[in-house]
């Protein structure tokens, strides 16, 4: 057990699926060769097959402490970094016959393929967005699966990283991770993954996905900092829950489940007691505690609505963005030198 553990809470009631987080991460970390197809941060429309496709059926993780077999996600299940024929379209002399299409064939999957599809039946359709990064688990399957000891959990903050010098590209980590958030660089033949923006963290700057989120969805901080929002949301109010706790890796990314709209009967009755997002679906994602969290959220919303005062709702509304980051609120501009890359 390390000294401390960094954690993140994402409030799914506020995520609007804009992918600013995804793009922030992409621009900062995964633009090099072999990383084009990687999205350390993804946002998927739920319910859906997610990314990589059907990752929840790929196994890995632990059951009652026992490592579970997992399978390797295929390239096609992540989707490729499609290229587009800008040159040909604009300067190819084809006039109105030119087409800015996907080069080289027609893909059938991508990192956000099922965007805005969701579930239910009109008019009781529903969907919500779920951003995912590496969960920086307390009991990380990727660390245990690596025979080289190349996947490391940092002592000081619990961030899980890959030591690319030690990695030999065996990819056991990829099979073992039940969240399928380990990526493989096919050019460099090494595993790569979300690093919780540790070079920023070390300078007191929140990860880019959190800092740039226009919806103020993400809270960042040490898990044990009782004065900060993570502790309050996870431990005090118990409204933030890990995704698939049954995978047994003890994630350090937590989700505030979506309350969602109520259902609308064919007879025109709006049934406040019947949610459109089925309870059993949320339980399948976040475990049985999801229902307790919803009860608390609804009660506190009502309290806020009627009395104007609720510690929980004030936290979630996040009037001041700085209060969301447990002290990691320095501006990236203010940090004079960040060694983003290892010098070669």
């Amino acid at each position, binding site marked *: 057990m390390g000294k401390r553990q960094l954690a993140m809470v994402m409030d799914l009631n506020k995520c*609007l*699926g*804009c*992918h600013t987080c*995804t*793009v922030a991460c*992409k621009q900062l970390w995964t633009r090099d060769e072999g990383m084009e197809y990687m999205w350390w941060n993804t946002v998927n429309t739920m319910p859906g097959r997610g990314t990589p496709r059907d990752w929840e059926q790929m196994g890995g993780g632990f059951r009652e402490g026992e490592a579970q077999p997992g399978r390797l996600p295929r390239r096609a299940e992540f*989707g490729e*970094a*499609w*290229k*587009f024929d*800008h040159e040909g*379209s*604009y300067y190819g002399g084809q006039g*109105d*016959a*030119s*087409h*800015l*299409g*996907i080069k080289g064939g027609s*893909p*059938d999957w*991508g*990192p*956000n*393929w099922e*965007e*805005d*599809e*969701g*579930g*239910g*039946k*009109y*008019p009781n*359709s529903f*969907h919500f967005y779920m951003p995912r990064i590496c969960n920086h688990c307390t009991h990380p399957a990727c660390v245990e699966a690596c025979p080289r000891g190349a996947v490391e959990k940092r002592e000081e903050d619990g961030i899980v990283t890959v030591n690319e010098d030690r990695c030999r590209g065996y990819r056991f980590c990829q099979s073992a991770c039940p969240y399928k958030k380990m990526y493989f660089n096919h050019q460099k033949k090494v595993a790569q993954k979300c690093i919780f923006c540790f070079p920023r963290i070390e300078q007191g700057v929140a990860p880019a996905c959190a800092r740039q989120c226009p919806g103020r969805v993400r809270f960042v901080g040490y898990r044990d900092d009782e004065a900060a929002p993570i502790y309050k949301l996870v431990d005090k109010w118990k409204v933030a829950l890990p995704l698939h706790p049954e995978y047994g890796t003890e994630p350090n990314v937590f989700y505030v489940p979506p309350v969602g709209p109520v259902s*609308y009967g064919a*007879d*025109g*009755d*709006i049934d406040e007691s019947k949610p459109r997002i089925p309870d059993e679906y949320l339980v399948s994602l976040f475990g049985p505690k999801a229902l307790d969290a919803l009860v608390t959220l609804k009660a506190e919303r009502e309290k806020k609505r009627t009395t104007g005062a609720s510690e929980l709702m004030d936290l979630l509304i996040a009037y001041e963005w700085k209060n969301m980051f447990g002290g990691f609120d320095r501006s990236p501009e203010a940090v004079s030198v960040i060694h983003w890359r290892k010098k070669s």
Partner: protein
Amino acid sequence: MIIDEGLHDVPYVIEQTDLPLLVRSDTRQFLRETDVVEGGRPECFGWWDEKKREIVWSASSAGYDKDKRTLKLQPGEHPALEPTGAEARLLSGKTVALRSSFSILRDRLADYDAERAAKITGVHAKVIRRFAREFAQARSAIIYSGAACAKILHGDLVARAQILMAALTGNNGRPGGGWQEMTFFELDGKILSAFVENVCDLKADDQAGIWGALTQMGQQQAASPTYISGSMMRLQDAGTRSEQLNPAYNDPTLPRSPEQFLKEALARGDVHNHPGSELSSPEIIFNMFGNPFRNSRMGGRLAQTRFRNARLIVDLTLRMDDTARHSDILLPTAAPYEKLGVKYSVAYPPYFHLGDKVVEPLGESKSDWGILALLAERVSAEARRRGVTTVKGYRGRPYDLTRTHERYSDKGRLDPEKILRLILELSPATKGITLEALRANKGVARYTGVSQLGKMWCGTTEDYKVDEPLVAFLDMSIRKRPWPTSTGRQQFYLDHSIFLEVGEELPVHKEPPRAGGRYPLTLTCGHTRWSIHSAWRDLDILLRLQRGEPVIFVNPDDARARGVADHDYTAVHNDLGYFLVRAKLTPGIRPGQVHIYHAWLSTQFVDGRDNDSICPSPIKVTQLAGKHGHIVNEIGWYEVGQNDRDTKVDFRKHVA
């Protein structure tokens, strides 16, 4: 329901709306003072006083004594909302019965009980009743309207009905209440620096001078407009006329063809910017700040019409959009972070947003202002060299070409930074805000006041306080200043002959037209979150987070009925043609709806045909009204527009 259950705000309705005003039973027009008083004031309207049993002329009227205009009722005044036995003796000696517009409205509303509304909307009557009651009884309720007139043919009727609901329930003037579209913190300095000569000599503390310059500018524009409505121009030379004027695509209850309404409006001069001989298809097109191929319905037809007819096409643009692809010369402009600028001054984020230059423009690109300055300089020099001085501008207005650069740059005194400083100095909304202060605060500053212009046009209000939310229309609801309409009230009854002829003098429901033909589905559109209109619509990194090419969203039942599966190539078609897209199936889309997010470039469609190519954009005949009180054809005030969301379509699986 709101009226039947007495949930309407009677004092508000009597004071702020035209609903108590009297309408003649013979002409269905408002009674005007000129009807009954020799030498009466024009545009002066009356109500029936229920105590005195006589007509009282409303002090709100546009034609009322200028210094005495107000919405405030005087002690002893009792306007009747539904007068009985009201009549007037006309100058002709004839006596006519009078009704209030409220009582006419009440008759009309009888057609719309919750059951009928349920049939029209597909929303259950119980929900409609609940919504109506909650809206009427809320401490404050707001309708924030984002899409109406420019989206559907009867968008004006929809908006008028929404405003009526907000007015009947007295919500205007309540914090967080009423009806709002886009309230702007208008920046007077922006208009001044663009249009007024010697703007550098204007001083912020000389409000009389500034107001004088604005007034002079307005008079010049009214006397000889330099502006041609894009929609009118499109009717003339964009190859869209037969679709836009097709009666089968328009309101089927129109008594005459749209073409006849258009001809009549042009003949009467109600639409001032009519296509006269001087406006034949232009020989030289200089396009800037817009992408007409994309932002006009059937815009692609420009390639075979206006753009084909032109000898030279110059496009000032920041990317290779559809218009750029059809131009001869491209003048590359700097992108947002490469030049100084101001962003939208919208009231819902009540902050001035500076867009500052953080990097030098790429390649040969320059700021828009800089490109035009260079062109103006060259035009002046060339005019001097050739001895060409005054030329005829639009409608024969003389223009001295040798002075082009002098006027554009205010004798060389202007540059982008100077203009920005002028905007800040000359706009009451930014009083006290300096460029230096903005830069020190990441380019953001709370507006410090409201503009004179903004108050008139945009619903901002004198009672704006920094650090409090802006409540629109307080000038009317609290200060009792008349609204900018003929009656000086929120005016729901429009007695222009076209409105009377087509039965739209009051907000009514009209069935959506069959734009594009008789097809079972409706094509809807909306703003994408992947781009700002078509800017960045073709960015690889964002396309990879979609499906890389245009898609429609359809209900799974509609898709199944047509044998269409997810990601099938699908032809969406109607009388005008078809476009090819991938299908995405989602229960979030209503059966009968085909949804496409906007702003795809035509080159992103597999065969270049885009969704706009099948939208016939029928013209709304009431938009051809003019010269009638506040219904005047003016830029940004009342014009013919476009629409796309009444387009009827069907779709089928496409096999290549």
